[in-house]
């Protein structure tokens, strides 16, 4: 059954990052091709085969720019300029968590005179992700 996404959280330690409207977690597995002449591993000739290699993830979070969020967005801003790795805890449902360390590779404050101030962060996972 589908679930609503509104209980989702993205935290630094015990503190939710405030004013976030969208985030995702696009894990990606690199692969090495193992296709061999005459087929490989029983695969039919003329088809490709692979093995999984390196796991990685780069995600984007977006929302309302909130400089006053001292335990959330302000930490991301500080860590971006200080080149400091941040440990984040992402929960799509408010219960299950994905914990990972990340470098903040993009910090984009967006302003449009006709609307509110928005922000995007791009997080590059460094190392493994712990699932709970």
């Amino acid at each position: 059954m589908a679930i609503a996404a509104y209980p989702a959280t993205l935290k630094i330690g015990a503190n939710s990052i405030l004013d976030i409207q969208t985030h995702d977690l696009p894990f990606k597995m690199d692969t090495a091709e193992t296709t061999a002449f005459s087929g490989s591993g029983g695969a039919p000739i003329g088809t490709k085969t692979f093995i999984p290699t390196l796991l990685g993830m780069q995600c984007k979070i977006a929302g309302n720019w909130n400089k006053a969020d001292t335990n959330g967005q302000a930490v991301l801003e500080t860590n971006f300029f200080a080149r400091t790795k941040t440990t984040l805890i992402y929960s799509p449902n408010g219960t299950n968590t994905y914990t990972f360390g990340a470098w903040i590779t993009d910090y984009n404050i967006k302003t449009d005179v006709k609307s509110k101030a928005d922000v995007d962060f791009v997080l590059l996972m460094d190392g493994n992700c712990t699932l709970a």
Partner: protein
Amino acid sequence: MSNQTSLVELQPAIFVKLTADSALMAIATGVFDFGAVPVNQPFPYITLGDDTEGPMNAFGTRGYDATVTLHIWDNTPNFKRCKTILAHMNRLLDQQVLTLATQHHVGTWYDFSRTMNDPGLDTIRHMPVRYRFETQEQ
């Protein structure tokens, strides 16, 4: 705890902002709820009504994207007084701080206005003016 809609907070806040301004109130004879204009109220006056609202949520916080349309009514032969009132309303509301009862006011934007000759005797000048508001519960 904040209200779970911005509409109950916007109308009184707009009313207070407009009626507290002596320059505007020197021209307009009053600001009224759309259905509560006194009989024989002298022109020009302003009515409040025609709201819309949609969500502008963030995770963990409800937010609102609303519009409120105010109406300027006059009985002069042209729209000069209506436009003067519009200028005062823009001075007071467009890109200005608005104090809400419980919610955080993100911003106000002047969105639309038009001049209308009401049908019939063609003696009433009507100018709807729409503002867009963004708010958040806190």
